[in-house]
């Protein structure tokens, strides 16, 4: 705007105060919305911490639960933590290689039409409610042969796959084309260039995507209700049996009449929440680091 316009005879000031008021009001509303979003997280973390703190001790992680306990013998949810470790670990082992290969195919080899189609399919899969994945795996694998940790892991890996694949595609797209050309220009086949030149550039981003995917599925309950929930109280690491998991344990304990069970459920929720917070923050930190590293070139 020219300085002349500010002093010129045509300048209209009559509606300026009203515009300022509207501007301030809208700004305030936006600020309030942001504050509400943060407050919700704060309230959740605070209330879970408050209610779970009393039962948060080493026993929670190391001692199995005791059914119909009449004494005050220490008990915990070791079976659930062991089961979550096994199931999430297996789910990662299933989703990670497939997710990376899907992303490599789409970004490095597929023609644009296939890339767009499959990317959309991944986004839709990402939006499928977890309980639908649970029913799907239940119908596919559980009916007739029973639950197991392995089947639970498969259900979770279906949720992880799109997350891992999309995150990997994002970092592959950041790898400069000049590097691919450098490899191909030497007369090296494309698969070899992808494997030794392109993929090593994306390790940071793949780790990030995987960490975020793990954080997401570690708290999933619905798919596990169908696939790995009919369990005893012993701690088991055998994925061929149904394994207890933290979210399912929280769900079951919350329905118990014993207030001590409620406290343990809150404590387990707190552990899960802290794990997810740490994993998300760690994932974000890794992502920033690998992105600045790649863009620095």
């Amino acid at each position, binding site marked *: 705007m020219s300085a002349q316009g500010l002093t010129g005879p045509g300048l209209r000031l009559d509606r300026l105060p009203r515009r300022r008021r509207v501007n301030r009001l809208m700004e305030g509303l936006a600020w309030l919305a942001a504050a509400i979003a943060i407050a919700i997280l704060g309230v959740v973390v605070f209330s879970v911490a408050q209610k779970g703190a009393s039962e948060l001790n080493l026993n929670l992680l190391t001692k199995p639960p005791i059914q119909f306990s009449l004494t005050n013998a220490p008990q915990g949810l070791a079976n659930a933590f062991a089961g979550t470790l096994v199931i999430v670990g297996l789910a990662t082992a299933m989703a990670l290689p497939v997710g990376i290969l899907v992303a490599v195919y789409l970004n490095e080899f597929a023609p644009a039409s296939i890339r767009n189609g499959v990317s959309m399919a991944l986004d839709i899969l990402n939006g499928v409610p977890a309980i639908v994945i649970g029913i799907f795996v239940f119908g596919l694998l559980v009916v007739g042969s029973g639950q197991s940790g392995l089947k639970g892991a498969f259900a979770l890996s279906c949720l992880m796959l799109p997350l891992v694949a999309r995150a990997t595609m994002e970092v592959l797209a950041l790898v400069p084309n000049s590097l691919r050309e*450098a490899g191909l220009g030497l007369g090296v086949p494309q698969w070899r260039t992808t494997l030794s*030149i392109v993929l090593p550039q994306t390790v940071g981003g793949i780790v990030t995507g995987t960490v975020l995917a793990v954080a997401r599925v570690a708290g999933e309950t619905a798919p596990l209700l169908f696939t790995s929930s009919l369990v005893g109280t012993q701690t088991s690491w055998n994925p061929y049996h149904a394994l207890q998991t933290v979210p399912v344990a929280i769900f079951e304990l919350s329905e118990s009449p014993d207030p001590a069970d409620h406290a343990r459920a809150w404590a387990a929720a707190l552990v899960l929440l802290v794990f997810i917070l740490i994993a998300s923050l760690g994932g974000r930190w890794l992502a920033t680091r690998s992105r600045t590293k790649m863009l620095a070139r």
Partner: protein
Amino acid sequence: MSTTIEPTVRVETTRRQPMPPRERLETIFHVDGLDAIYSGKPAVKDVTMEVYKNLVTAIIGPSGCGKSTYIRCFNRMNDLIPGFTQTGTIRYHGQDISGSNIDPVAVRRNIGMVFQRPNPFPKSIHDNVAWGLKVLGMRDDLDERIERALTRAALWDEVKDRLKASALSLSGGQQQRLCIARAIAVEPDVVLMDEPASALDPIATQAIESLMHDLKSEYTFVIVTHNMQQAARVADMTAFFSISQGDEGQRWGELIEYDATEKIFTAPSDKRTEDYVTGRFG
């Protein structure tokens, strides 16, 4: 505006050996009626020329005349661009390498390339040269091959004490010479250079030009440059490309004149070449 035709580019003949007579030259590429097309839009139309072995051939012309597109046809680099098609033939030692039955990997194995911007791998200096050698099965005397390539690229003395350092720690000119070392280490037949010095300072440019000069007894160089002095200094043969315009405003690159460098710069046959090399255009 001056009315006399005075070339702005002095053709330096002292540093270059005289070119052998045409009939003694061996043709390495026969380009015949080549059209390069991006999604239906021609970038270069109807190029016919021969590239001779053990010479430096320069391709000059204004921006947008398709020089880079054209040079990338020689090693099928355009295959990577979606929607790119090419008609006509490029025969390499008599064999058409532009057909879909030819494996581009095999073409690139014989015809190496140095790109406009230095693009070293984010690996050590040593590994930048070693990677291609290892992948292509040239593992014998690896260190010797690396030293020889780096020496030829006039980089060895500067990096011999820090081969384990990251290639990204080198200066731009050193990175480009590393890319040249990487390209010649795998012993190609032809080295294509797409404006190899456009991102470099004059000293690094001179280093690259003199290494082309020293290496042309073993390799054939095709170099794209928008720097006419550079073409005059390094090239034996020079091809001038220009932009032609169709009736409906479509633009494409065209080969205007192809001749010995001295001829192009001192006695061009085409008016457009003359306008370009005398600095009246582009």
